[in-house]
């Protein structure tokens, strides 16, 4: 039986047998989810701008990732949604309701902090029960139903039997799951996760990623998580929001983001890519003094950047109009071999993938043609 089915059954049981008249029970039966709308959020810390008018629609029940380098404003956006910080202008709507004037307590969000922020002096049980115990007497569940709820959550996060432990006695992954259960205990309308796997080692990370996806599918919370790991974002999220320098660069599914990057930043940040500075002139592209056999029809004349992924090239032999470079490095990359080339007079670096059994010598010459590429005008 799945944990959720168990959870629902428990709830029915409590309702039928203990005749609890609390609204709590009704709330427990359905997982309330809501859509979140972010409108034109502007935030600066003193003179340092953090967000320049960010707008975003998050659908109910969606699992969405905010990804970007440090300083891109992703954590700031998450904290503004939670109400832990307040914007200089713009607003956040939960459902149709403006949350701007609501305090963090009133917003009913589940927030998992990067360092978990567990209460060290409380047992795992008390940590998870905290959000229920601090409720006003009128809405506070009975001791029996708190117990029931905590046990159900412990089951959900697979920490049965550890309820008496203290955070200091748990591993990183276990702490993470306690933080998660604690956030879920209050039946949050939205679940916000700040770098949820940031402090864990690679293997645990992978496991927890799958686990998070599973839990999300079971409970259906609207979930926003922040990560600097693009792989994590692409693998886990329904939609990915790529951020840079306080702005949203692109919002889309993993396929969208990877196959159709909207901006040079996204092309560069998501996946591996090479960028070469070129000049577009009447539909042809020049790399330094070489004209490349790439059709640039429809692109404006002027300086531009040619982006392509290492695996989107083919070896060109003696064909004219190819990109020719000197091999400066070669390393094994799974099933393929990745070469590092220096191209043109200015020795631009780029990376290409070739079959692992290719015979390439260092300092040898290699000619390639991109099979798939993007051209972005260069502003300089």
């Amino acid at each position, binding site marked *: 039986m799945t944990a959720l089915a168990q959870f629902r059954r428990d709830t029915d049981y409590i309702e039928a047998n203990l005749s609890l008249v609390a609204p709590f029970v009704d709330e427990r039966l359905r997982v309330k989810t809501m859509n979140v709308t972010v409108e034109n959020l502007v935030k600066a810390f003193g003179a340092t701008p953090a967000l320049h008018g960010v707008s975003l629609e998050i659908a109910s029940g969606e699992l969405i990732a905010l990804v970007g380098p440090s300083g891109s404003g992703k954590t700031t956006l998450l904290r503004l949604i939670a109400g832990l910080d307040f914007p200089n202008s713009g607003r956040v709507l939960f459902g149709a309701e403006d949350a701007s004037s609501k305090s*963090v307590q009133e917003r009913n969000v589940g927030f998992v902090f990067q360092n978990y922020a*567990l*209460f*060290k*002096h409380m047992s795992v049980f008390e940590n998870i029960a*905290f959000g229920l115990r*601090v409720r006003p007497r009128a809405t506070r569940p009975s001791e029996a139903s708190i117990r029931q709820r905590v046990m159900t959550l412990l089951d959900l996060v697979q920490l049965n039997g550890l309820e008496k432990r203290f*955070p*200091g006695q748990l591993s990183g992954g276990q702490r993470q799951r306690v933080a998660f259960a604690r956030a879920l205990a*209050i039946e949050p309308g939205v679940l916000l996760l700040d770098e949820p796997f940031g402090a864990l080692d690679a293997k645990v990370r992978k496991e927890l990623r799958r686990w998070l996806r599973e839990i999300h599918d079971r409970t259906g919370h609207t979930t926003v998580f922040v990560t600097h790991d693009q792989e994590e974002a692409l693998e886990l999220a329904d939609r990915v929001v790529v951020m840079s320098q306080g702005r949203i660069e692109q919002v889309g599914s993993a396929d969208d983001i990877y196959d159709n990057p909207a901006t040079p930043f996204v092309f560069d940040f998501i996946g591996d890519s090479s960028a070469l500075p070129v000049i577009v002139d009447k539909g042809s592209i020049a790399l330094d003094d070489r004209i490349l056999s790439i059709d640039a029809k429809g692109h404006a004349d002027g300086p531009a950047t040619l982006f392509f992924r290492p695996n989107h090239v083919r070896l060109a032999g003696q064909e004219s109009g190819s990109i020719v470079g000197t091999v400066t490095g070669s390393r094994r990359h799974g099933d393929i071999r990745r070469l590092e080339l220096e191209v043109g007079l200015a020795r631009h670096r780029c990376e290409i993938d070739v079959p692992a059994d290719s015979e390439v010598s260092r300092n040898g010459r290699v000619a390639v043609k991109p099979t798939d590429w993007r051209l972005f005008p260069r502003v300089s």
Partner: protein
Amino acid sequence: MTAIAIGTWRKPSIIPGFGLTFGFLMVYLSLIVLIPIALLILRTTQLSWAEYWAIATNARVVAALRLSFGAALIAAAINTVFGIIVAWVLVRYEFPGRRLADAIVDLPFALPTAVAGIALTAIFAKNGWVGQYTEPLGIKIAYTSIGVVIALTFIGLPFVVRTLQPVIMEIERETEEAAATLGASRRQTVFRVVLPTLVPALLTGFVLALARGIGEYGSVVFIAGNLPYRTEIAPLLIVIRLTEFDYNGATAIATIMLAISFVMFLAINLIQVWARRRFGYV
């Protein structure tokens, strides 16, 4: 078991110099602490049990001990409550004069205790700044046990504040934010999340302030009035016995104080050990 213990004992360590420093520790502790206390206890053995018991149950001695320990306990408790607030404000808020306020906390450390005692007496006496208003209300402060408590509160404050400050600084902002996202009001956050994490440091600060209060002499003798049976503290009684050349009487009172203090501090220490084991942190 012994073999293993010796094995680990002799194991070459990454940090060298254990032998030397441990030897120093033993010599130093012996010279400064253990030998004087041993002599004190040795001196008491010159008394028979009957004589010792007579001194211990002497009404004047009992009254002095009760005042010393009682006033020190009350003062340490007051310092614990207000020390939290002082330390909290000093750590958490930026305000003009914060560094000055921070330095003022140390004054009771630096000021000669006699000076503090005289100053406090001047303020709380019948014609003093504060005394002139409280006295008509029937509240006598100077030359009463209230005065003793005030003097001990004064000298004990920095112990609590200085013990708490680093611990408050270490509280992660996120812990409080987590409590807020879970729906806890500010008040609930303070009483259920912040204060409990401060308990070990509070206990330490309390113990330090208490220990200081029990032994305090200089500031108290000026404000207490030193009436036998009423405002005479135990350290003063020891001095009185010494001036009367009653060395046995003085050491007897001293060992009683020592024994009570030892039992109290041992108990508090055990509470801390228990807390550490239970919560897995200090």
